[in-house]
Each structure stands twice: as structure tokens, then as C-alpha cells.
């Protein structure tokens, strides 16, 4: 053991949340010092307090007159109840969410036939029980009141009229809005008749003039029907378009391997990972499975456990970059040059990547040679357990090079798995371009748009609108009357995936069925049903079409019911076991040509004075499809903590150079072309001279939630530069914008909230996370608040694997009926999320390290909130929960004032007041919807605890560890959250709390929190001294 004096001291980090907090700006200080921000107690918009009291008096008396008697409620049972339906007892159904080229396995909770909560399917390889925020928010997409409800036909001359429509058996027809101007309501049968009139002509011409524009699919049934359609109409044109897709990745693999294969990555098998501008843990496809694999290499029980190392090279600061052990800030356009330099370095180290002889590569300026050397050495030292992944926005050549590097290092087959791309309709920008040319040339007379919103999200230089104007019949199938529907001649309401039969293949080829949870709410039809009409010539139910496909996928039946049994097994499990083809074994990689590689360095340098513009799908609205889902709009971005809109994200240095500050308006222009005005938001850790914008905002026709939120940046996005483009300029407009963001909400005043160390530091100092302060053994009242009998619930959160992905926040919102408050209320600090994910920076503002920390209620044994409640509305239960009795609460907010952790949320307004009928169906019937004037907070999912207790009692067995899983724990892709009984020694939560990384938040207060944390560990390379972020 070396002498103590030779040990370098553990680097004490100072953590900060925002630049304002770090620099001590008065505004941030004032925000921190007040329990509620200025004006938080004021009623909304232009009413002073006195007027409000008068109004309240009036409404009270009126309410007294009108509704002083309890309303008479009726029981409406089913006339012939189906077997196994017990009112009040939830059921669970496995289904699949199709999402571009990917498919995610879900299990949906259904109360009396109404889906209410989405979880991941524990059997499905893409989920393993977890679901991302976007997957879970699909429930609100289903119950979106702005979904289209009628078949619409455009009428010449415009003018809305509300005639026609299917009257019988239609849900809430009277609540439906009138059709958009220029449309008339029609029935589905009218559309079928209109198509039948056109059909013979197209049959005679072999389909000349007929075209399909579809989103990407990975579905056996749709693939079969698409084939049948092409057979029926050989002249048919088909284009597949996705604004955000794996097109480059598939093309890159094809370039290197010579055939079309789909890559998946087993991050769990990797010891050294390199991300080349790839947001593996949140932004990319299959991020849930990747995050789970990544976390598997970081679940550290002791300081001697092996830990993986993540190297990230990226422009925007992503959650993956936040988890990095070494991070290099580099403009997206220079990542290709960096990868070439790395390949050359590997060649020099004796790893044969297959670069052309004599090919020289130079690292981009500013990248230390030692960094590349060390990285190359680390990768070369882990043959078969390294992984290099290129981001999906990077060109195909980089994906090919990444595969070549992986092949040379022996990673193909271990961490990189390549699968035959079966049943895949892959997106293609070239196909879209060809189709639009044909449309402009008058070669297309009927165009079917089978979902998606190309008018909104097609590349700006394609000028899709002018091409659409040349088509005589545009038929649009879509969930809403969106931008594309407005330009169509027929609009057909689409059935949501939770309403329709379908099927899907996950990235590794696992086949599963999309099982409907409820009959179509608004009478929609699925793409499968519409394609049946076109390809088969007659209407067919989705169920029959899917079964027809699956008769080929399932083993040949012997008995008369064998097929049904096998099919029902697929429905029950949510996938067909063993349907994933084995990864390709013997893969021959072709050497990369000089031209291919030269393309990587082509547009690396932007003209001086211009910026690189980087487009990223929004973590909330994705490409815009989720714009009308309020849960996602209000979900704070993992890194920037922005809600309700997008911004031009800049690094502090670039913002200073341009003279821009947070919330300044700036005009973003590309070359001399289109310009949009965005607010500026400064993100520490972003690459200099880049501006990052999120797609999916500024929708014109998204609905009551999403229309007009944020700024549409698609006008700047051109084909060939879908991911990033050089040559952008940003000039201040002098206007100020107001951004709703949460980064300073609920701070704990710079106390030692997050704790972290490097692996080496941890090994030297195993107890670093423990308190340096004296922890009072007894609480302020000297009481022992832990009953000896019964379960005592507690939680442990591992900061080492939390990627800040927000899945837990959304799970909590969905499970606990947490309201959405809107941007104005978020600005006042009134967001209601029971579980918030705090993001801390440490280090220099240009090059910070990042830690995420989920903060639910701590359920203190000596809860300070309970001691100040004047009406005993917050009390302790026998099993250690700090409970809220909503009916007792008078809204004094003393509890929130006294809470050291700032986890209590107050209903300043009646957020559920004007909930549309259809949105009420999304609420969890097991949780009270709180009204105005009531305090609320995390309950440790008390309804789940009670349900598990009842289930165990019915089964006459004791509660076992894992019976109770809170919503956040259940969905966490990295299993950062564990919940259980303190009295059960073998429980996972106790195992976690015994680890030496365990610490309590503000333990010195003596409130004895039940929620504890495991400190974050970083694993920098020992040879690479200095800052881990460059």
C-alpha cells in the first residue's frame, strides 16, 4: 500500500444547476429563497385578490343554489358480462407499439376494458419490463380529444357543414367539433364507394397513377399486404418516409457488409463503449434495451466490481453524454474526421480496420492526440467486449466505418449483433424524392398517405405542398386532422395502435402482435384495414388479416385448434418466443473505399463566422407526432430542463460571442434561405459553434395542446442534411421570449445533495459517500418512528445508473393522475410532478460533468411536514408512509414550507376542471383526482401496496419482496429505483442500503428519510489525467 501522503486528495466537486445559480445572479437567488416563486400565490391573469374573493362568494352562493344535493349516480353494468371481468379489478394485456422501424413490447393495464396505464412487457427483448416516457404517454394519445372523428371529404369552395356521418353506435358524436373548413362529413362506406369507382381504372392500367406514401413499418402483415398491393397494381409507386429514422444506419451496414442487415447492440456485454454522436440511452431506437444493458455494467455492489467505461464524442449534450466517463465536445460534422483518426490510430496499434493503404487521417483541430491514443488503446485492449456506435444522424459512411472498427476488434457477434431485416419497409429519402418528382410531373392521380404527417415534416427543399397540389385525389389516413389532412381530398380517421389489430417485428426480428385494448373510440380504421381494401379488393377485419399472416409464421397446425392455441399464446405473452432469427454468424466485411471515407471529412469545416445547425428529435414530441400529448409537453427535457417548447441551444462561449443570453430571441438562418426565430437557451457542455434545435414543435394543426407550442424548424431542414448542416447564422432580434423551464425549481441550497467519486477514489476511500456531519440518532422529538411489526417501506435510488430519461416521471404521472398545468404555471414554479429528476452540473461551465438525481418524497420517519400541519392532513401510517389525507387539507401550505426536500406540490388551481370526457378515461380509477387548494405528493404508490396486500391475502401467502413495485421502479429502464420492506433482511432494498455508497439526503436534519441514494461513480481512464470532459 502506498504511503498515505502520496494519495491524491479526492476531488471535491461543487455542484450547480444553472449558470445563474453558479454565478449568483440575483434572480436565481430570489427564486431559491422563496418557497413559491413571486406571484405563485396569485390567481391567474389580471384578477386582483379582492375581485377574486367577491367572485368566489358569488360562485359559492350560486353553486349552493344549483347543486347542494348529492348528484344521483347510476350503476350501468353490462347486460351480458363476459367471463373473467370483475368490476374494479384491473386486467393486463400484452401488446406492441409500432414506432418507425422498431417495435416495443408493452403490457397495458385495463380497467373494465379501458386502458389506463402502459408498462413494458417483461418478456419482450426491446423492453424487459420497462417503457420509455413516450411509450407510456401513448395512453394520452389514445384519449386525445382532438383525434379526428369522421371521414372527411374536401368540398370545392369550402364551407363547413355537419351533415352525414355515422350516427349509430358512435361515441360522443354530439361532443365532436364541426369538421374543418372545406370539408364535409362522410361515412366510411362513402369512401369505399369512391374508391370502388376509381378501382377498375387502376386495375386496367396496372396501377399507373396510383401511389402510396407510408411511414416506416416493421410489420409482417403490412409487409405481406404491401407485396399483394404491388402484385395487384404492378405500376404502383411506393415511398416510405420517416423524418427521423435509421436510414443512414441501414445504408451504412449495407455499405460495409454488402447486404441489408439490422444492427442491435448488446451494451451489457461491452466493457468499453464509444458513442459517436449517438444518444444510445434515450434518443435512439431501442434506447430502453440499450440503457438496461449499459446499466448492467454499472450495477456496483462493492468497489471491487468491474465497471464499464463510456466514451462519448458529440455536439449536443445528451443523456448519453451526461453518463460518459470521458466526453469530447465536437461539432457533429467533425465526428467523421474524428472516427477516421481513431481508425488510423487503431491501424497503427495493429488492429486491421481495413483502411485503404496510404490513407491518412488527421484528427479535427482541438482534439488532443493523447485522448485518441488512450481511447484506441482502451478499445484494442478489450477485443470482443468493446463497442463503437455511430449516431443515426451521421452519414452512412460513418456507420460503415464503425462497423469496420467493430469487426476489426472482434465485437461483431458479441456486442454488435446483425440480423436479417425481415418484413421491414425501411424509410428512404430517395424514394420520397422520386415520388414527388412523379407527382410534379403529373404522373400520380391518386395518392394514399398511410399515416404520418409529411406536409409538416418532409425536407423543405422537396416542396411537398406544390407536388401535392398536382394530385387529383389525395387520401390521408391519420389520427388527427393535421397539416397533411388539411391538404387531402379525403381524410380517414386512423385507429390508434391500442384500438386496432396489427403486428410488428422488433429490431432483432422478434415478432409480436399488436393487440387492441378497446374498440376504436372514434370509429377509425387501421392501416392494415385500409391496405386490405386496396390490396385484396374487399374489406377485411384487421383480426382476420393478422391471423392470415400468422398462419405462415406459426408452426403448421396438426389438430383443428392448434393454430388458435399457438396464436392465443402469442397474444398472451406479447411475442412469439424464438421468432428472432439468430444473428448473422459469418459476416464478411468489405473494405471501405477511399471515396466513401473521404466523404466523412468533406463538410467538416463550416465557413468562419457561421454555426453548425444540429437537428434532433425532441425527447418529448419526437418528430411532432406527440405534440398534442400534454404529459410529454410538460416533461422537462433531461438536460436543458425546458418544457413546452424548443429553443436554439448554444454553448456558453458561443452565446457570449453572439451576445445572446437565455430567452433572447434570435433569428436562425441557413445560408441565405429560410429563417425562423427562436428563443436562445444556453446549455453548458454543448460543443462550441453549434446550435442545436429540436424537431417536433410549432405544429399548426396538432390540437388544443400542441398547436403553436414552440417553433417549427423543419423549414430549415433539407434532404442530404437531415441531421446537421454547416453554414447557419444566428442573429439577435432584440425580442425577449419567455421559456418555461424547471432547472432551478426545488433546489436544496447547495448542500451536499449529490455525491460522486471516481472508481479509483472510491477504492481508496470506500466510505466517501457517508456523512461528514453528525447524524442525530434520535429525531427532534426523540421518538422511535419505526414500528417493529408489519412491513416498513423504503426506497433506494442508484445515481450511478440513473440516466435522467424521465420514464419514472411519466410513469408516476400516469399512475397517480398528476395534472398538467401548462407553460404559464410552470414558469411560476407550479409544475405538479411528484417525482422530479434534478440535473446537476459540476466543473467549468464550458465542460461540465453531469449527475441526475430523481427526487420523490423521502417519507421521513420524523417528517417535518407532519409536525406543522394544522389539521393533521399529513400523517404517518403504520407501514411508514407519510400519507396525505386530501379531504382534510385546507391548503395552508405549511407542510411544503417545512419540507427540506421540496417534494410537495400544491394545487393552486383546479387543473382537472375542464377535463374533456374522453380524457377522463385515462385517469387511474384507483387514485383520487385532487381538486384545488389541496397539497399532494409522492405516496410510494400506496394503491399498489394495497393491491399487493390484497392479492397476497387472497392467495393466502405473505407479501414477498418484489410484490410491491412502485410505478417509477417498475418502469425504470436501468433499475435505478428499488423499493421494498425494511423488515425483510433479504429484500433487495436492504441489500442496496447496506452498500457503502449509500447515503441519505440532508441526514443531518435527523428526519430519518426512508428514501436513500447510492453515490455516483465515474470510471475515467487512469492514463488520461485532467478533465474528463474536453
Amino acid at each position, binding site marked *: 500500500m502506498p504511503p498515505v501522503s502520496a494519495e491524491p486528495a479526492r476531488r471535491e466537486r461543487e455542484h450547480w444547476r444553472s449558470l445563474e445559480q453558479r454565478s449568483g445572479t440575483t434572480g436565481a437567488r430570489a427564486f431559491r429563497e422563496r418557497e413559491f416563486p413571486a406571484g405563485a400565490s396569485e390567481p391567474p391573469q389580471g384578477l386582483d385578490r379582492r375581485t377574486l374573493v367577491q367572485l368566489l362568494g358569488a360562485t359559492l352562493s350560486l353553486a349552493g343554489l344549483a347543486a347542494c344535493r348529492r348528484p344521483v349516480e347510476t350503476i350501468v353494468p353490462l347486460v351480458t358480462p363476459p*367471463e*373473467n371481468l370483475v*368490476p374494479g379489478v384491473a386486467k393486463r394485456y400484452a401488446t406492441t407499439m409500432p414506432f418507425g422501424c422498431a417495435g416495443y413490447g408493452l403490457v397495458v393495464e385495463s380497467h373494465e376494458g379501458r386502458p389506463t396505464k402502459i408498462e413494458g412487457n417483461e418478456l419482450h427483448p426491446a423492453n424487459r419490463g420497462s417503457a420509455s416516457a413516450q411509450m407510456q404517454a401513448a395512453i394520452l394519445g389514445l384519449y386525445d380529444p382532438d383525434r379526428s372523428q369522421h371521414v372527411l371529404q374536401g368540398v370545392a369552395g369550402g364551407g363547413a357543414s355537419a351533415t352525414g356521418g355515422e350516427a349509430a353506435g358512435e361515441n360522443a358524436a354530439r361532443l365532436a367539433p364541426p369538421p374543418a373548413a372545406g370539408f364535409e362529413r362522410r361515412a366510411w362506406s362513402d369512401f369505399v364507394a369512391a374508391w370502388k369507382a376509381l378501382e377498375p381504372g387502376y386495375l386496367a392500367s396496372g396501377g399507373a397513377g396510383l401511389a402510396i406514401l407510408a411511414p416506416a413499418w416493421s410489420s409482417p402483415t403490412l409487409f405481406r399486404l404491401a407485396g399483394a398491393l404491388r402484385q395487384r397494381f404492378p405500376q404502383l409507386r411506393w415511398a416510405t418516409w420517416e423524418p427521423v429514422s435509421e436510414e443512414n444506419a441501414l445504408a451504412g451496414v449495407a455499405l460495409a457488409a454488402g447486404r441489408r442487415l439490422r444492427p442491435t447492440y448488446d451494451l451489457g456485454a461491452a466493457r468499453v463503449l464509444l458513442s459517436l454522436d449517438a444518444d444510445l440511452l434515450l434518443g435512439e431506437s431501442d434506447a430502453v434495451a440499450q440503457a438496461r444493458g449499459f446499466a448492467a455494467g454499472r450495477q456496483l455492489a462493492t468497489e471491487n466490481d468491474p465497471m464499464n467505461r463510456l466514451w462519448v464524442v458529440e455536439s449536443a449534450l445528451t443523456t448519453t453524454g451526461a453518463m460518459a466517463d470521458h466526453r469530447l465536445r465536437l461539432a457533429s460534422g467533425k465526428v467523421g474526421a474524428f472516427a477516421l483518426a481513431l481508425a488510423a490510430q487503431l491501424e497503427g496499434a495493429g488492429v486491421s480496420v481495413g483502411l485503404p493503404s496510404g490513407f491518412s487521417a488527421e484528427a479535427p483541430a482541438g482534439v488532443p492526440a493523447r485522448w485518441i491514443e488512450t481511447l484506441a488503446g482502451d478499445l484494442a485492449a478489450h477485443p470482443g467486449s468493446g463497442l463503437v456506435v455511430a449516431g443515426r444522424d451521421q452519414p452512412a459512411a460513418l456507420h460503415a466505418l464503425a462497423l469496420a472498427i467493430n469487426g476489426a476488434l472482434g465485437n461483431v457477434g458479441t456486442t454488435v449483433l446483425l440480423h436479417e431485416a425481415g418484413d421491414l419497409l425501411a424509410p428512404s429519402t430517395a424514394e420520397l424524392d422520386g415520388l414527388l418528382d412523379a407527382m410534379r410531373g403529373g404522373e400520380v392521380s391518386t395518392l394514399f398517405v398511410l399515416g404520418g404527417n409529411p406536409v409538416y415534416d418532409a425536407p423543405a427543399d422537396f416542396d411537398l405542398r406544390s407536388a401535392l397540389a398536382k394530385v387529383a385525389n389525395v387520401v390521408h389516413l391519420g389520427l388527427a386532422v393535421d397539416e397533411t389532412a388539411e391538404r387531402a381530398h379525403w381524410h380517414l380517421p386512423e385507429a390508434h395502435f391500442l384500438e386496432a389489430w396489427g403486428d410488428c417485428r422488433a429490431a432483432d426480428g422478434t415478432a409480436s402482435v399488436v393487440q387492441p385494448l378497446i374498440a376504436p373510440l372514434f370509429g377509425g380504421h387501421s392501416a392494415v384495414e385500409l391496405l386490405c381494401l386496396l390490396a385484396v379488393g374487399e374489406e377485411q377485419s384487421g383480426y382476420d388479416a393478422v391471423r392470415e399472416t400468422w398462419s405462415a409464421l406459426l408452426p403448421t397446425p396438426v389438430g383443428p385448434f392448434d393454430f388458435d392455441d399457438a396464436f392465443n399464446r402469442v397474444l398472451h405473452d406479447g411475442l412469439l418466443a424464438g421468432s428472432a432469427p439468430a444473428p448473422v454468424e459469418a459476416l464478411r466485411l468489405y473494405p471501405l473505399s477511399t471515396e466513401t471515407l473521404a466523404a466523412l471529412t468533406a463538410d467538416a469545416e463550416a465557413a468562419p463566422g457561421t454555426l453548425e445547425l444540429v437537428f434532433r428529435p425532441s425527447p418529448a414530441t419526437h418528430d411532432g407526432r406527440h405534440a398534442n400529448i400534454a404529459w410529454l409537453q410538460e416533461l422537462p427535457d433531461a438536460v436543458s430542463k425546458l418544457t413546452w417548447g424548443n429553443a436554439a441551444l448554444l454553448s456558453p462561449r458561443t452565446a457570449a460571442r453572439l451576445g445572446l443570453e437565455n430567452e433572447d430571441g434570435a433569428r436562425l438562418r441557413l445560408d441565405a434561405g429560410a429563417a425562423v426565430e427562436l428563443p436562445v437557451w444556453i446549455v453548458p457542455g454543448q460543443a462550441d459553434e453549434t446550435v442545436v434545435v429540436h424537431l417536433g414543435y410549432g405544429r399548426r394543426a396538432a390540437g388544443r395542446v400542441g398547436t403553436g407550442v414552440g417553433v417549427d424548424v423543419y423549414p430549415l431542414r433539407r434532404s442530404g442534411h437531415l441531421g446537421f448542416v454547416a453554414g447557419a447564422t444566428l442573429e439577435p432580434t432584440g425580442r425577449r421570449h419567455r421559456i418555461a423551464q424547471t432547472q432551478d425549481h426545488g433546489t436544496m441550497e447547495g448542500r451536499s445533495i449529490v455525491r460522486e467519486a471516481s472508481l479509483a477514489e472510491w477504492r481508496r476511500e470506500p466510505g466517501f459517500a457517508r456523512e461528514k456531519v453528525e447524524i442525530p440518532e434520535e429525531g427532534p422529538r426523540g421518538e422511535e418512528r419505526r414500528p417493529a411489526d408489519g412491513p416498513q417501506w423504503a426506497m433506494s435510488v442508484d445515481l450511478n445508473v440513473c440516466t435522467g430519461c424521465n420514464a419514472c416521471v411519466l410513469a408516476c404521472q400516469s399512475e397517480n393522475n398528476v395534472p398538467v398545468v401548462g407553460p404559464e404555471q410552470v414558469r411560476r414554479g407550479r409544475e405538479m410532478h411528484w417525482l422530479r429528476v434534478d440535473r446537476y452540473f459540476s466543473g467549468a461551465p464550458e465542460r461540465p460533468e453531469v449527475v441526475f438525481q430523481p427526487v420523490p418524497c423521502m417519507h421521513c420517519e420524523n417528517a417535518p411536514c407532519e409536525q406543522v400541519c394544522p389539521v393533521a392532513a399529513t400523517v404517518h401510517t403504520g407501514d411508514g408512509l407519510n400519507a396525505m389525507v386530501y379531504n382534510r387539507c385546507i391548503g395552508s401550505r405549511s407542510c411544503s414550507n417545512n419540507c427540506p426536500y421540496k417534494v410537495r406540490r400544491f394545487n393552486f388551481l383546479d387543473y382537472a376542471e375542464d377535463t374533456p370526457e374522453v380524457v377522463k378515461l385515462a385517469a387511474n380509477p384507483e387514485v383520487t383526482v385532487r381538486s384545488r387548494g389541496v397539497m399532494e405528493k409522492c405516496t410510494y404508490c400506496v394503491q399498489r401496496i394495497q393491491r399487493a396486500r390484497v392479492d397476497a391475502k387472497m392467495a393466502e401467502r405473505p407479501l414477498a419482496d418484489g410484490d410491491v413495485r412502485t410505478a417509477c421502479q417498475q418502469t425504470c429502464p436501468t433499475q435505478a429505483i428499488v423499493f421494498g420492506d425494511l423488515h425483510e433482511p433479504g429484500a433487495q432494498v436492504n441489500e442496496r442500503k447496506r452498500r457503502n455508497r449509500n447515503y441519505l439526503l440532508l441526514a443531518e436534519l435527523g428526519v430519518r428519510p426512508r428514501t436513500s441514494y447510492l453515490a455516483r461513480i465515474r470510471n475515467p481512464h487512469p492514463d488520461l489525467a485532467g478533465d474528463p470532459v474536453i
Partner: protein
Amino acid sequence: MPPSARSRLIGAGLILAAVALAAGPRGRASSRPPIRAHADMDVQPRAEAQAASAFFYDGATLRPPVAGTVARGELRDSGPYWTGLDAAGDFVATIPMAPQALDDAFRERGRRRFEIYCGPCHDRNGDGKGILFERAKTRTPSFHQDRLRQAPDGYIFGIITGGFGLMPSYAYPIPVADRWAIIAHLRELQARHATRAEGAEAGSAAQSPPGAP
């Protein structure tokens, strides 16, 4: 306080007083629902079990499951346990369960379910003279006849599942496992009845059973 506001407050007070008067004297029976001054989250903006719905065309929040779907834990195959039929499509002769599962606890469960769901009409002894006979003089078939003694178990399963004549389907209240338990109890009832009948016959033939002291 400006005079207008004061008068407004007084007005509000008067209205409240009127409300209190209109509420009427306490203690008198009323057919109207009780007065509720403060709703306090009583009526929830969410869909409750079996509640009325303003959204769905049939007015119910309860939605029947989509035909063909399979919930978790409700997977059924086409085997005899779920259908009562064998591979050839005939009724199974005996309960398609492992013999060791057909224990006393299983029959006891069947007895309790039988007395809840079957007893009221069929009588707890199975002689067909239940409450329906007492009140409406409508006889259900006695289980103690040769036709039903020799009927295969699958036949009885089919009748519980699908109903017969006046009898509706009991598939909803009686899960499949309980149906087989009821059949097991029914067979025991029949056997006991037969033994008793034989015993009675034997008893009338000879005054004392053979071997009796």
C-alpha cells in the same frame, strides 16, 4: 370596503340564508338525495367501475373486451380443461385434471360454490326441488336420475358454461376451476344419494344390515 362590494356580500349572505331555509327542517324523511354543501372531491373526473359515461354511445364506462384478445393470466387452450371436450369433439367422461388435484378441499370448494349458485334452483341435495319449486312450482331436473348419473362430466360442464332451457349461462360468475369443482361435488352427491337409496332398499329388505351386532 366599497359600498358595492358590501351590498354584494350582504346579497350573498341572504342567498345562503335562503338556501339554508329551503333545505327544510331536519329529521323529516325526503325522497331527494341528501344535501351536500361542499363536494370535496366526491365526484371524481375519472371513469369509475360500472358508472355512467357521457362519452360512450351506450352510456357505460364498462367496455367489453375486444373479441379475440387474451389478457395476461387468462390464456386458454382448446384442451378439455377449458372446453369440456376431447380431441374428437366429444364430451370428456371425467374431470380432465390430475387425480391428486381432486382432493377433499377441491370437493369442499365445489360444495360451497354449488350451494351458492346451483342450490337455489336445483336444491342443495340435487333433487330439483329448490326455491324455484317452492315458490313457482317449477321443477328442475333431479340429478339423481340415470340420465344425469351416466352423463359425461363434460356434458355438465357444457351446461354450466352455456346454460340449458330456462337456465342461463353461469360462465360469468363461476370460473372454470370452480365449474369442475362443482361437478366433483355433484358426483359425490349422486354417489351418496345412490348409496343411501341402496341402503334404504337393503334396509327394507332386511330389518338389520348383515353383520350388525
